[in-house]
């Protein structure tokens, strides 16, 4: 405890509000507070007296957050409603009800049973899924927080019990339980640091500051008797606005977003804060932001609906044809007093067969026929698909290759609806921070005095180095050197620099030791980092605004310049003295901090060292040095090299100021800072611009925004699979571009089309503050840039030149306007890589919607933070990275994985398999039901369409449930065209899904046709071989039940053997279910036939007595089955050999053992529909090209 007390004391010495120029803080006071109390601004909160009746807090929602679909009470009606919203299920419900009327061609029980079975199974599944969701809710709602109980005492309570007006105490690294108004913090000036990673994905900490009037309430007991009123806006989804007033002891103070702490953000670097609850539960901004999880359906399922409509149409058509013929024959039976088919007693008939009212009879017959032909529509389709998908999800969850050891997290498919959609992804929209990168910065290289240091190898370089023929092979020894960094020493977070030349103080012997010294000193001094930890021991950690700042300070420390203390005006560094070679402590007086801003792209500090020398230390983007200086060429080369390796580079430079110059500057900067005019910013800028010139170059640093393991590899594979990858990030443009390079989405020879609004005209317009004019000009500007971009694309035409589109959030807002979004989309689709930076969560979602609806292709969004929630929900598939940060993204995702790289396996293996399985399964389903249903129709033709079922009632209803269901489920769960290894080896196979080859109408109709002709062959062959002669040598002739039994046997054989022909992967399970289904049919026939004839009716002993002893039955079965399957067999034999599909080729490869022949494999692999344009493979290709191009010149 002593340590922390010490720490606190030290912190108190610093008024952080003066260290940071909190420009954003003060800017909001212009905002109109007069609306408060008016419509939309009517919320009244009485703080610290939640029981007061005036507060009316009962009308505010409690802090319980619910994400489940059903409650106990609504489960039954709601889920039943969901079930019968499916048109097929509704149809079966109607036929089920009708089956109780005399219209039914079969018994009611046999019609209802499958429906009950199917609905029951689905509801159980729904229930289980919702139960799991409920468990997660409970976990979140039961987190605890300290709440003011009264009399200055704080108690730990559950989140869900919080109510509006409560005062809570949130401690370091805790999440805020609701939206709070910040009252005070452990700092004197009521400042606190907030990490809003979960909200907007930005990693840098945000500073919030409470009102001055409440900042003194820093102890628990201060809240005894504290009372305040807050009037503010109503709950809304806008994360960045908040308008309110706080009334304290009769005085009103304006509240701005600066005082608002949002739920799901995290308190950082601050011991504790006190805050008053303003919005709870579903009123909080983050929950308001998250729309209801839309129930997503995959493309295949939507297409399946169309097939079902087609089937309905066929059923209606067949019923109609039947009804017409039936009506005519019925009418003819009794015309003008002449009875034709007297044995039907047409003269005395119920309405269903009444010749006198034949049209009515025909209408009723239509209903009956529609019931009979309901076997065209596979009743078990939905439930089978759902069972299959659940099992597929289990496979995804169980995949050991998608288990992340370090975080102990397996992949988790949260919804099973979208498995097959994973096989059809056309565009991936990826978040950056936490998704592509692991959100840690590592100092990895530097260039000092024209010499490059650092042997660290980036992910990209490693990935490239692994490929043969790479020029980086030369550095392979470095790769090995770096292979086991963990073994050598405990790795320092943020520092991955290896170079014995300057480590451990060796730099003193280097040629330009003085430059190196200045370089390292600059790193140690020029920053806004606060050291933390015990001053005496050498364990000092740093709290920085951004992780790259921290990386610099850590690097300086590791290289011998340890920054260990900061006061209001000074920085203390332990450094190695070049002359004496001893460690000395030096104190630098900080005179000015010139903050980083996006126009200057640099930050500087002006310090005075112990000798009284005034130094301007500056680090910034590469524009820094303008005219020729020492080492400039080398440094520039290095910087380019680093940038291409995906590193963030900064150039370091310094200069000495003389007294007079500084004084001059000092006066002017304080003038500028105290000015209140609108162009205060630009005044400051002007002044700083003046002083930051004639700098002397020291060198450059390269920081790796550490990519997650295997990201370049994964992106490369995905690119090879023809998937487009867009990066949508909240980050700055520079950062985004850097990551683009790091992850191989960008490379040097790509033409970048950058769209932004950083033009002088817009800036000058912005100063005038006329919103309409700004908007209009901006939009025109953006449109112009887009059109220019398109022109460039067009000009490049078929060239292999790849384009990259980089657009920032502001421009994106205009580009997404309805009238120009399609042009924008066209441009974006034409580019190999698209990077949207500075995009808000809403924009991410909008971009996703644009891509999804614009080109109708499947989109996958992947992200890890709450800022990605909109995107995840909007996309066809949302993949959440279950990283270290909150659960928001995971909670609203469809599938959660632990690392970006697992996407490769998720898509290329599971996605491909699931797509293949589901699409084949659906095709097969319709095939088998057509085969079955159409024999019914054909038989009808021989009964003058009187709707006599050809089969026994229970044969009818069990067809879908018993004799043909398991093999198709096994197909859906287990089938593999090629094994996982080949899926990954030939990523192009994935295009089968993207192009939807396996579920094209051609294929679907092909399968349907297969069903129709199978039915025709089965029916006519059975009919011709059975009737009218004797069945066996005892002279017995076959009746209806025997024809039905024989046909049914043939159908069971045919559909099951068809399955065996269609799949290419036989495990024991396949054997069991296929042969088992056939066996079950025989068993069923036997057992059911042995039941008393009351139950088995027309099936009574048919098999045992009539079919089995008759040789003709067996001979006919053999003949019919083989003949029916023969056409398909011929078709697939021809296709496999002469027109193989891509998976067929890979099967050949495997079969012929050619997969070890790299050249041959490459040929198959490279057979791409579009050339790979991103990823390091493409980069290597590009490099080869440029080498070739440059050869003739040299």
């Amino acid at each position, binding site marked *: 405890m002593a340590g922390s007390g010490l720490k606190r004391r030290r912190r108190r010495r610093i008024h952080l509000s003066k260290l940071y120029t909190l420009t954003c803080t003060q800017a909001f006071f212009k905002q109109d507070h007069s609306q408060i109390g008016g419509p939309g601004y009517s919320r009244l909160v009485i703080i610290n007296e939640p029981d007061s009746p005036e507060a009316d807090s009962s009308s505010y929602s409690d802090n319980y957050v619910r994400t489940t679909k059903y409650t106990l009470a609504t489960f039954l009606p709601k889920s039943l409603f969901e079930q019968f919203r499916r048109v097929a299920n509704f149809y079966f419900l109607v036929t089920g009800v009708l089956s109780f009327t005399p219209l039914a061609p079969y018994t009611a029980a046999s019609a209802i049973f499958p429906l009950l079975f199917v609905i029951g199974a689905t509801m159980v599944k729904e229930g289980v899924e919702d139960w799991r969701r409920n468990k997660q809710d409970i976990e979140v709602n039961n987190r605890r927080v300290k709440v003011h109980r009264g009399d200055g005492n704080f108690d730990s309570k559950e989140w869900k019990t919080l109510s509006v007006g409560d005062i809570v105490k949130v401690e370091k690294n805790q999440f805020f339980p609701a939206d709070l108004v910040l009252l005070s913090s452990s700092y004197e000036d009521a400042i606190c640091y907030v990490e809003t990673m979960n909200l907007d994905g930005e990693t840098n900490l945000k500073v919030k500051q409470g009102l001055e009037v409440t900042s003194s309430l820093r102890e628990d007991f201060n809240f005894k008797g504290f009372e305040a009123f807050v009037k503010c806006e109503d709950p809304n989804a806008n994360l960045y606005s908040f308008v309110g007033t706080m009334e304290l002891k009769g005085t009103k103070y304006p509240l701005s977003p600066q005082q608002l702490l949002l739920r799901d953000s995290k308190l950082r670097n601050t011991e504790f804060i006190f805050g008053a609850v303003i919005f709870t539960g579903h009123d909080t901004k983050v929950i308001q932001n998250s729309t209801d999880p839309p129930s997503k359906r995959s493309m295949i399922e939507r297409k399946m609906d169309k097939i079902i409509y087609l089937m309905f149409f066929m059923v209606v058509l067949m019923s109609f044809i039947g009804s017409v013929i039936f009506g005519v024959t019925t009418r003819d039976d009794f015309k003008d007093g002449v009875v034709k*088919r*007297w*044995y*039907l*007693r047409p003269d005395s008939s119920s309405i269903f067969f009444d010749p006198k009212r034949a049209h009515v009879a025909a209408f009723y017959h239509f209903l009956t026929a529609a019931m009979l032909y309901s076997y065209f529509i596979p009743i078990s389709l939905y439930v089978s698909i759902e069972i299959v998908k659940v099992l597929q999800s289990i496979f995804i*969850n*169980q*995949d*050991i290759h998608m*288990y992340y*050891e370090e975080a*102990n997290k*397996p992949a988790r498919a949260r919804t099973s609806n979208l498995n097959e959609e994973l096989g059809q992804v056309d565009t991936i929209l990826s978040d950056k921070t936490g998704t592509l990168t692991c959100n840690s910065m590592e100092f990895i290289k530097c260039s000092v005095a024209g010499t490059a240091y650092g042997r660290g190898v980036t992910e990209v370089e490693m990935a490239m180095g692994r490929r043969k023929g790479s020029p980086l092979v030369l550095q392979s020894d470095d790769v090995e050197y770096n292979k086991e960094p963990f073994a050598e020493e405990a790795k320092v977070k943020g520092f991955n620099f290896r170079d014995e030349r300057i480590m451990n103080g060796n730099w003193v012997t280097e040629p330009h030791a003085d430059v190196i010294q200045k370089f390292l000193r600059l790193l140690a001094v020029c920053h806004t980092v606060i050291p933390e930890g015990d001053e005496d021991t050498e364990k000092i950690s740093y709290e920085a605004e951004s992780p790259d700042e921290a990386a610099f300070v850590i690097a300086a420390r590791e290289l011998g310049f340890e920054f260990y203390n900061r006061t209001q005006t000074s920085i203390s560094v332990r450094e190695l003295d070049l002359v004496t070679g001893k460690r000395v402590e030096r104190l630098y007086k900080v005179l000015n901090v010139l903050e980083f801003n996006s126009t200057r792209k640099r930050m500087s500090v002006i310090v005075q060292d112990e000798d009284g020398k005034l130094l301007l230390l500056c680090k910034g983007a590469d524009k820094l040095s303008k005219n020729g200086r020492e080492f400039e060429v080398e440094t520039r080369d290095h910087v380019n090299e680093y940038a291409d390796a995906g590193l963030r580079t900064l150039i370091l430079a310094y200069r000495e100021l003389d007294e007079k110059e500084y004084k001059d500057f000092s006066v002017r900067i304080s003038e500028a800072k105290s000015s209140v005019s609108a162009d205060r910013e630009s005044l400051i800028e002007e002044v700083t611009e003046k002083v930051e010139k004639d700098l002397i170059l020291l060198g450059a640093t390269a920081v790796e925004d550490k990519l997650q393991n295997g990201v370049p590899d994964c992106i490369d594979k995905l690119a090879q699979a023809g998937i487009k990858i867009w990066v949508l990030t909240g980050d700055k443009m520079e950062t985004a571009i850097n990551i683009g390079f790091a992850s191989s989405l960008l490379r040097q020879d790509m033409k970048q089309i950058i769209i932004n609004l950083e033009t002088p005209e817009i800036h000058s317009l912005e100063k005038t503050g006329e919103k309409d004019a700004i908007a209009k000009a901006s939009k025109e500007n953006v449109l112009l840039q887009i059109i220019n971009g398109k022109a460039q694309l067009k000009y490049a035409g078929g060239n292999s030149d790849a384009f990259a589109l980089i657009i920032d959030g502001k421009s994106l807002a205009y580009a997404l306007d309805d009238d120009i979004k399609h042009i924008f989309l066209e441009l974006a689709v034409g580019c190999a890589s698209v990077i949207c930076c500075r995009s808000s969560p809403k924009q991410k979602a909008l971009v996703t919607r644009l891509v999804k609806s614009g080109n109708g292709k499947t989109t996958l969004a992947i992200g890890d933070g709450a800022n990605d929630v909109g995107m995840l929900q909007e996309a066809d598939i949302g993949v959440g990275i279950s990283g270290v940060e909150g659960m928001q993204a995971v909670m609203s995702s469809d599938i959660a994985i632990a690392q970006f790289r697992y996407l490769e396996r998720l898509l290329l293996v599971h996605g491909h398999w699931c797509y293949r399985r589901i699409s084949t399964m659906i095709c097969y389903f319709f095939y088998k039901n057509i085969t079955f249903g159409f024999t019914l129709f054909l*038989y009808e033709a*021989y009964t003058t369409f*009187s709707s*006599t079922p*050809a089969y026994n009632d229970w044969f009818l209803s069990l067809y879908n449930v018993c004799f043909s269901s398991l093999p198709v489920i096994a197909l859906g769960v287990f089938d*593999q065209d090629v*094994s*996982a290894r080949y899926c990954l080896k030939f990523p192009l196979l994935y*295009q089968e899904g993207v*192009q939807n*080859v396996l579920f094209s109408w*051609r294929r679907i109709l092909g399968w349907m046709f297969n069903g129709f002709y199978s039915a025709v062959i089965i029916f006519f*062959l059975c009919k011709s*071989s059975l*009737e*009218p*002669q004797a*069945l066996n*040598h005892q*002279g017995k*002739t*076959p*009746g*209806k039940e025997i*024809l*039905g039994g024989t046909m049914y046997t043939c159908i069971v054989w045919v559909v099951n053997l068809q399955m065996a022909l269609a799949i290419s992967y036989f*495990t024991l399970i396949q054997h069991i279910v296929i042969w088992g289904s056939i066996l079950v049919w025989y068993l069923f026939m036997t057992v059911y036939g042995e039941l008393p004839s*009351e139950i088995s009716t027309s099936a009574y002993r048919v098999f045992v*007595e009539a079919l089995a002893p*008759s*040789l*003709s039955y067996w*001979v*006919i079965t*053999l*003949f019919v089955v*083989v003949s029916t399957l*023969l056409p398909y067999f011929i078709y697939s*034999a021809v296709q*496999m*050999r002469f*027109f*193989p599909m891509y998976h067929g*080729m890979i*099967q050949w490869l495997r*079969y012929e053992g050619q997969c070890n022949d790299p050249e041959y494999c490459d*040929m198959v692999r490279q057979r791409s529909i579009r050339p790979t344009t991103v990823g390091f493979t493409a980069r290597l290709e590009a490099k080869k090209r440029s080498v070739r191009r440059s050869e003739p010149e040299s």
Partner: protein
Amino acid sequence: MPSNTASSSSAPAGSADSSASRTKSKRPKYSKFTQQELPACKPILTPGWVILTFLVISVIFIPLGVVSLFASQDVVEIVDRYDNDCVPPPARANKVAYIQGGSDKSCNRTLVVPKKMKQPIYVYYQLENFYQNHRRYVKSRSDSQLRSVKDENQIDACKPEDDVNGRPIVPCGLIAWSLFNDTYALSKNNQPLTVNKRGIAWKSDREHKFGKNVFPKNFQEGNITGGGRLDANKSLSEQEDLIVWMRTAALPTFRKLYGKIESDLEKGDTIHVTLLNNYNTYSFDGKKKLVLSTTSWLGGKNDFLGIAYLTVGGICFFLALVFTIMYLVKPRRLGDPTYLSWNRVPGGGR
């Protein structure tokens, strides 16, 4: 078919243990099942297998076809259509009136045995264009009533042949009511041929579906008489004509067993049939045929199956040849990207 077992099988890494000891590891358990690496046979249709399959089919089918055809040829069948001939020429203008009239319906037919027929010789009647499979007809029966006396009032399904003035008809329904009632008396060389009418129905029907103590009641006593009458003193289980009739036929052309002749007939024997042409098929233009037939192991005479077997067997043999030639003439070239189905149509997605 060629069988390859799945080759890739990565054993779980040893590093799992360390994390397992700290917290409960969520690492999925490795098993071939969960990793979808079950050993599997992955057949593909190689030329060899395709040709072999065709050959095997033809090797099985052709002999089977020959055997079936022989079996069918062995069967001797005499078919005699008599519906037209048994109406006296003057009445032929209005056959319906004739059949519904009260005149003598007897008719003599002469059949010549073309080949030696070994006993048992089955006597069938064959009806054509008779829709025993019509839904109204099929459902118009009461199985429970046929089975036991106590259910004789279960006649809901039998309308309009359910009761006579409130007394239930046994057996009720249209099927029973329209019982076929032509009778045949056969004689060979003026010696009557005994036609055995026992054992013509399925045993299960006799024993379980038609009750031993269920006797016909009020049968054919309604205002319209349908077909044949039943002996009110014989239980239903003994009325085999009814039982045969009540097992409805699948198609509008059907044969039903009338009886068996349990003596051989020699080639050239003349058989005189004295038949009573009672049954009305004239209303609906149905044909009536008398059939005498022996059976083989495959049942009655039907060349279709044998010919079909031979045809398919032949086709398969032919295909085997064609495929052999195709494979030899045009070996597959994997290197040709035009084979890729989505490359053939520009733009791909259909």
